[in-house]
């Protein structure tokens, strides 16, 4: 497994890096509106009626936006939790932690693809 993780490292780092850069850029506006604005009543609930939200999300640009928004933060998160585990627990358990974290991110990414396709 350690050998496989080393082989996959360029791909994981690409997703991790884009999770920081693109994920952060996309998440800020998403959290401001979907996470805080509408629930707190700062933004009109008409902005996220089912029809409008579905129209926006099911367009090609909307699907690409959502795919990046869902997938990239998962890989940023998985890699940083692995890093945190190394900081506190050393390298001894790294292979196991990395395997679990990347599996979580991979399953989440697969579910994200399904969620975006079924819109």
């Amino acid at each position, binding site marked *: 497994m350690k050998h496989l993780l080393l082989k996959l490292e360029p791909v994981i780092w690409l997703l991790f890096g884009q999770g920081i850069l693109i994920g952060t850029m996309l998440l800020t506006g998403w959290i401001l509106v979907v996470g805080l604005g509408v629930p707190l009543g700062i933004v*009109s609930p008409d902005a996220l009626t089912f029809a409008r939200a579905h129209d926006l999300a099911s367009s090609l640009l909307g699907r690409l936006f959502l795919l990046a928004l869902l997938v990239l933060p998962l890989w940023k998160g998985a890699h940083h939790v692995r890093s945190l585990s190394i900081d506190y627990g050393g390298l001894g358990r790294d292979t196991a932690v990395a395997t679990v974290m990347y599996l979580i991110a991979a399953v989440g990414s697969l579910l994200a693809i399904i969620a975006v396709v079924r819109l």
Partner: protein
Amino acid sequence: MARPVNPHAMTPSRPGRTRTAPPQAPSGWYTQPRMLKYLLFDATGIVYLLVGFVALRVVWALGSGDAAWAELLRQLQNPLYIAFHVLALVSVVFVAVRFFSLFPKSQPAHIGPAKPPPQPLILAGLYAAWIGVTLVVTAVLAGWVL
């Protein structure tokens, strides 16, 4: 023969002539300001993972129909969700500010004959892109445009 990269590849094959103690982290290392910021940056990974799965839940509900969507919007008003999204916003801003400050310093001196732009210009570009993308995403999602 090519082999996978080994992080310990540069370890000397034999101990040096000068005896050295094995490296040890000083006690309370994680409370030192420089380390604390580094560890907080890593810890935002937990928030990003959760935000990713919450966003997945939002999109899944949207694909499940009108009733599921209405129920999800109702659940997002729960104070726990609100508190989580406040934490998520703080984390995202912290990641952006820290990453943008490090990014210009990590650029190679040159790529072939081309040199990267001056560091302040890269930094300004990153902030401009972040603010620009955030404004567009916010305006579209909030229904101020489209």
